[in-house]
């Protein structure tokens, strides 16, 4: 804020006819201060990530010797030991399975539910809408203890299907809310045309409305992917079987073991392994992601 205050002197911003240079002294000062602040922040963001990448190639003793030194030899030993001995490989697979299934299910169910809520009138519609809102607002921590027993009673505690179902359930309100406004915005005429052409409700949804909702579905799917991949509390509380661990639990294992017992090289390698898939998704979908934030907030 200070950067702005300092340079706020309005100065007559009237464009003087005939002034040739594009930048005034005030402009240059503002630009300098702004760039300085933003560059400092960029460094604060990037530096830890680069340092993590660098450290993932060092041995534990090198890590302790100096935070700056480059690794003596560049090899993937840490990655191998993280993948194999720390079990990150298995956890990676579990995460892919859980997130994959949960994502497909929540998109399908969320799309269906949002479609019905947005385009059909029936008693209880508002009540369902407010229930969803409650699901968004209340902390998951309130539900976590009973949820543990709900899953145990139906025999899904510590299993991947149990985890998938809870992921779906807790991602549902967000999905429904976002898609709700999306389906409302779709023109009625096309659904009517489909009905006149003899399409039933099922066909109208799957062959007409769902394809039209693709942009909205894509945005929500990206958010859900990131959210589910990064999910922490649900697996930690509901999935204590080591074979079914997901990546975030493996990370938590590093966090809670005592300092001397940790293989720090493997830790850094595991961090890189966890971050790279989401970074790839981010880089590929960067435009859509930023687009979808604006899409929802504008118009």
């Amino acid at each position: 804020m200070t950067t702005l205050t300092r340079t706020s002197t309005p100065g007559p911003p009237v464009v003087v006819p005939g002034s040739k240079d594009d930048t005034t002294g005030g402009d240059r000062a503002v630009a300098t201060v702004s760039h300085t602040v933003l560059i400092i922040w960029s460094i604060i963001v990037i530096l830890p990530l680069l340092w993590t990448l660098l450290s993932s190639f060092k041995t534990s003793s090198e890590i302790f010797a100096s935070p700056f030194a480059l690794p003596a030899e560049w090899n993937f030993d840490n990655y191998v030991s993280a993948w194999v001995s720390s079990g990150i490989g298995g956890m990676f697979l579990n995460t892919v399975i859980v997130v994959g299934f949960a994502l497909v299910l929540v998109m399908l169910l969320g799309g269906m539910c949002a479609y019905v809520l947005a385009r059909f009138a029936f008693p209880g519609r508002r009540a369902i809408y407010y229930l969803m809102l409650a699901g968004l607002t209340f902390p998951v921590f309130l539900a976590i203890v009973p949820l543990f027993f709900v899953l145990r009673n139906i025999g899904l505690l510590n299993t991947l299907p149990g985890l998938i179902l809870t992921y779906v359930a807790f991602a549902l309100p967000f999905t429904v809310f976002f898609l709700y406004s999306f389906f409302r915005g779709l023109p009625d005429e096309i659904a009517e045309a489909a009905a006149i052409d003899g399409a039933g409700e099922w066909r109208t949804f799957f062959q007409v409305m769902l394809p039209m909702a693709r942009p909205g579905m894509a945005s929500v799917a990206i958010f859900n992917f990131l959210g589910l991949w990064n999910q922490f509390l649900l697996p930690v509380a509901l999935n204590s079987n080591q074979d079914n661990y997901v990546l975030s639990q493996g990370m938590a294992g590093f966090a809670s073991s005592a300092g001397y017992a940790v293989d720090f090289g493997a830790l850094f390698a595991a961090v890189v392994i966890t971050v790279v898939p989401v970074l790839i998704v981010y880089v590929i979908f960067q435009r859509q992601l930023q687009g979808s934030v604006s899409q929802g907030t504008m118009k």
Partner: protein
Amino acid sequence: MTAAGADPGRAIAVGVGPSGRRKPSRGPRRRRLSVDYVSFMLVFLGLPLAIFLIFVIWPFVQAVFYSMTDWTGFTAEFNVIGLGNFEKLINDAIFMKAMLNSIKIAIVVPIVTIVIALTFATLITVGGPSKGQVRGIRNSSFYRVVSFFPYVIPAIVIGLIWRQMFDPSAGLLNGLLTGLGFEQFDSYAWLGKVGTALPVTMFVIVWGAVGFYMLLFIAAIKGVPAETLEAARIDGAGRFRTAVSIVIPLIRDNVQTAFIYLGIMALDAFVFVQALNPSGGPDNSTLVMSQQLFRTAFTQGQFGYASAMGVVLAIITLLFAALVFIINWATGGRDEGGRA
């Protein structure tokens, strides 16, 4: 990082915003009852709703009931003890400490995050030269992309990275500081000292949150009509004046949403504290409600008592949201009701 894939505020943030202007379609219609329609409704509404009710709403309801019992989870019988758990909570020094820490985080983190995110968003969108079209500074997309990085990194990993950064002897921070000549930071335990553990934790949460909100505000500011900004400039408003008097009032709904979501996240904060200081920090200085709840439930097995903590957490969350609404209303949000 509260719900799976669903940060509540994000849904609200993305769904609401200044989108109120969009004309709704003709609205829902009633249909005739037919096999097609009934089967359609059963599957399309019934299936998602069943999952949602069983795994989300039902546990919420149960939690409120359990909070009034002395249930330990693994025995079938328990006694309803009314508000006994809540009385016990008030006299529980550790929980009260955790609650205080949570509240501190919920006050500091949203304010700091929003000030930083709003400043950066303004610089990027309207901070540019004061001549010609109103625009942002150069290279703004670089800053935007970089600032957003932390959002895609799992929170637990953010915590782990920063725990290593703050490591007393092997961490980069102390390496840099001692390298710059600040010898007193040689093996300074940032996370191990009562004075710095909580601020450092807050910093890490802010680090992870700024990018997303920056993006959200950028999107909102881009929704402000260019003519409005031009008009302000012609009337003699400088950048700071434009930001404070034009931009912020026009996106105040987004700011309110951001506050609520950040508050919900900060009151949780479980992932971060669990990564940075799984034991609660020196003298419990980073212990938060969620962490204490988790411990009470899953290591001590006091499920009734833990549920009471969950109820307190939920009440504080709702109070926080109400407070944000009231402040927004009292500071002038009411004058502009209905505006974009």
